[in-house]
């Protein structure tokens, strides 16, 4: 093959966002398609699936293939790209009847609550009816197609990335709109007479033909940009003629073939389209929920724990005997860079998987075969204050002594953790270490408030008739919950280590890892087993507040301006004053600032809801800040994870901002819901929500500022 042709064929751009968007849509469609297929299937299911996948592949080819790489050099390549975007991908996607599969692919509650009102609103119907009526769409199609091919508009697109994007978006969207009236998504009568598609398609072909002919017969190069780029083998004029021919012939086929089909249908004696006969089929496959309820999960947990234990041992050994250059040592990389990011990722995508695979409890469980603990944890320590203090100490020590940069210290910490859990749980009954001591566990408990899965009961009615309460008491097959969470009264993931003992113990198979709406429990304040009402617990509120603000403090501590500030104070106070400077920063950001801000919000709210229960209300609002805090943790840890794996980091900042966006939106949502519970009038609701919304916006702005600062890269050789 010619070397130039070979080079051209190798010119595949890599747009991760394109691929991610297409894969996301494909997965969503696939999930929905399988769900529908399990209940009802027709003979056309495979065809639809094939059409939809072909549509996505066409989009991918248009946007992420050599066509995209050469669209600046060859008008013919650019026209092919436009043809795919405008005339090929849209009908293929619509032939896949994507509506139901995509809706079924989304969480049911999200569809009902978030999308439902839009789909069923009369105003929405009017707009969509208008927007998809043949005259309007025909006009839009013509304006978009002809308008963008006027030389000034086309040159604008060639010279600016933004306008080039807008041009492509216009083609794709007018393509979708154009085909919507022709490809009905559900069986039923069309709102248009049977002959209407014929002039509609002929009009589109006319527009296409006039445009193509203008390219072919123009007699001069219409777009100077292509003239300025010298082409191999063909002149710009020839390239333009070729572009016109591509547009004319395949472009016309796309409109004329359906026009012929509609004409034949119109003229045939039986014009009615055969209704599809859905076939009900029995369920043959286990659903996702059934799988997560399965008894094999506890065994899988043991395997995960053993694996994590092995990794922890390797980290300790390397930390002690390996090189003390952190980026080259397992102890410098695995715990601080990979594990932290992966555990937060798992929390956001599934749930508290790290506690499920905890290596410390693995050792403890082994020891308990030999030692039976007899003591009870002192009453005074049955709260979250101890882990709060430990967390503050950790956040300070992490920066003050650069724990991440010292493999041997990291190894000592992990060893200390093993020893601590072993000693505490060998002496005291229950999972005392997890519940009242472990700072990592507390971090996961709070973070898992926005997890999409929860260990919960499937049917409360089954629990009402249960007398044995094996989920908490245990039985011969499994011990009960060591954190004293009684499943029927358990709400949210707080204090749940995902150990799945309750799943194993429940004789009714009524406990499972079930999907929940992230953050849903933040808007409620039920009595929670072994915790009580969150609005009554100062220690939980303090823990949540600390974890939220520490997200910003921890990330800010690695940025240039903050480090400079710390070094300035270090120089001013003396050679050993760095821990003091760091301590002051941590104390100010993670303790004093949140206390002041919460006090400010409480004082503001007091004007509207009175003195009664005012602190109780504030304690509820504190949990509303958890999503923005978690999103900051995710954004920050993702940065370190990405810098350890990738050299090109252009995708990192957008993902980080999207994380913060999602956190802010969820926080605002929870604030609005909570304010609605305390405000009797709209004005009162707004007044209650405003101070908390201001705090969350401040956190968002602080987060964005931190993300935009030069940040110290860790876990890689500098």
């Amino acid at each position, binding site marked *: 093959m010619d070397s130039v042709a070979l080079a051209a064929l190798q*010119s595949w751009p890599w747009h991760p966002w394109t691929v991610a968007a297409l894969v996301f849509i494909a997965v969503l469609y696939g999930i929905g398609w399988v769900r529908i297929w399990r209940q009802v299937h027709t003979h056309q299911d495979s065809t639809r699936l094939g059409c939809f996948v072909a549509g996505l592949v066409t989009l991918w080819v248009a946007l992420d293939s050599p066509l995209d790489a050469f669209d*600046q050099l060859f008008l013919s390549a650019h026209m092919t790209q436009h043809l795919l975007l405008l005339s090929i991908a849209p009908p293929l996607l619509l032939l896949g009847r*994507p509506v139901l599969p995509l809706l079924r692919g989304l969480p049911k509650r999200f569809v009902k609550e*978030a999308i439902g009102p839009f789909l069923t609103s009369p105003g929405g119907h009017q707009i969509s009816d208008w927007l998809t009526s043949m005259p309007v769409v025909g006009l839009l199609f013509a304006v978009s197609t002809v308008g963008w091919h006027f030389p000034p508009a086309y040159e604008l697109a060639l010279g600016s990335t933004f306008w080039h994007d807008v041009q492509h978006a216009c083609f794709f969207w007018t393509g979708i709109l154009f085909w919507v009236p022709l490809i*009905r998504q559900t069986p039923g009568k069309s709102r248009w007479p049977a002959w209407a598609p014929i002039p509609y398609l002929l009009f589109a072909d006319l527009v296409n033909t006039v445009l193509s002919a203008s390219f072919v017969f123009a007699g001069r190069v219409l777009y100077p940009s292509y003239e300025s780029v010298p082409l191999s083998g063909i002149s710009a004029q020839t390239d333009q003629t070729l572009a016109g021919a591509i547009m004319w012939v395949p472009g016309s086929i796309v409109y004329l073939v359906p026009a012929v089909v509609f004409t034949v249908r119109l003229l045939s004696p039986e014009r009615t389209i055969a209704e599809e006969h859905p076939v009900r089929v029995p369920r043959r496959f286990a659903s996702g929920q059934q799988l997560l309820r399965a008894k094999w999960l506890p065994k899988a947990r043991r395997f995960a724990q053993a694996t994590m234990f092995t990794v922890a041992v390797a980290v300790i050994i390397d930390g002690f005997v390996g090189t003390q250059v952190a980026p080259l040592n397992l102890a410098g990389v695995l715990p601080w860079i990979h594990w932290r990011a992966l555990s937060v990722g798992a929390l956001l995508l599934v749930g508290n998987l790290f506690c499920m695979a905890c290596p410390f409890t693995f050792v403890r469980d082994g020891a308990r075969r030999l030692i039976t603990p007899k003591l009870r944890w002192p009453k005074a320590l049955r709260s979250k204050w101890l882990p709060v203090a430990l967390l503050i100490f950790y956040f300070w020590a992490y920066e003050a002594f650069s724990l991440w940069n010292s493999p041997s210290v990291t190894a000592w910490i992990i060893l200390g953790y093993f020893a601590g859990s072993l000693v505490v749980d060998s002496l005291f009954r229950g999972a005392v270490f997890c519940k009242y001591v472990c700072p990592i566990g507390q971090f996961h408990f709070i973070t898992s408030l926005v997890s999409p899965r929860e260990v919960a009961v499937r049917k409360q009615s089954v629990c009402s008739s249960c007398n044995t309460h094996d989920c908490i008491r245990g039985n011969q097959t499994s011990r009960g919950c060591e954190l004293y969470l009684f499943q029927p009264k358990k709400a949210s993931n707080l204090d749940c280590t995902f150990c799945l003992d309750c799943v194993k113990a429940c004789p009714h198979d009524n406990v499972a890892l079930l999907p929940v709406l992230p953050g849903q429990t933040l808007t409620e304040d039920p009595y929670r087993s072994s915790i009580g009402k969150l609005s009554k617990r100062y220690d939980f509120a303090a823990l949540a507040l600390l974890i939220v603000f520490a997200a910003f403090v921890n990330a800010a501590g690695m940025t240039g301006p903050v480090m400079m500030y710390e070094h300035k104070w270090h120089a001013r106070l003396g050679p050993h004053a760095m821990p003091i400077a760091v301590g002051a920063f941590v104390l100010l950001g993670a303790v004093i600032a949140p206390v002041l801000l919460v006090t400010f919000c409480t004082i503001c709210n007091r004007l509207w809801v009175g003195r009664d229960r005012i602190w109780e209300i504030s304690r509820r609002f504190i949990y509303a800040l958890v999503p923005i805090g978690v999103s900051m943790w995710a954004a920050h840890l993702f940065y370190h994870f990405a810098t350890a794996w990738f050299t090109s980091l252009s995708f990192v900042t957008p993902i980080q901002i999207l994380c913060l966006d999602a956190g802010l939106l969820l926080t605002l949502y929870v604030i609005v819901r909570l304010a609605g519970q305390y405000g009797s009038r709209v004005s009162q609701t707004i007044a209650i929500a405003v101070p908390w919304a201001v705090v969350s916006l401040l956190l968002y702005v602080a987060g964005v500022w931190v993300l935009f600062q030069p940040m110290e890269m860790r876990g890689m050789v500098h």
Partner: protein
Amino acid sequence: MRRTTQQVCLTFLFFVGSRALLADGGKVQLQKQAGPFLITVFSDPSEVRVGRVDLSVLCQKSEDKSAVLDAKVFLHLTKPGGAEIVEFTVPASHDAATNKTLYAAHLDLPAAGKWKVKVDVRRDGDEASVTGDLNVLPKQPLLVTYWPFFVLVPLIALLFAINRRLRRGRELRHPRALR
């Protein structure tokens, strides 16, 4: 249901269509004939700003305009004037290019202003150099660079407000509809 279908189609495909925001760009910054070669320099993004920039070179034979794929290409960039003269040389290669008929180099330009670009091409004893100016604009504020990501928040908040309003309207029309 049909209406629903249409609305949802528009909604979900927004995500796919949003890719268009990342379409490739590129602009001819310099084109000159030198020796046996015709050399064209492109930039991406089309407006060159301080920071990361992708400069691509198309090298063609003068006589038949066929692409030359086996040359050695170097880019020399100089920022004259001022107290400091910034200067660096980078090789351009097919590996760094999306379009494999071009030679590309990814550069971090440290300062705004007029830069001198010199492209050196060597191939089988033939050597050619072209020079030209590259106007580098100041760095865009990050808030401007990432504005679509910040617009998402008010946009979704607005959609939420509309959602609430629609729900309230529906509840008033059909009190039991949403239960």
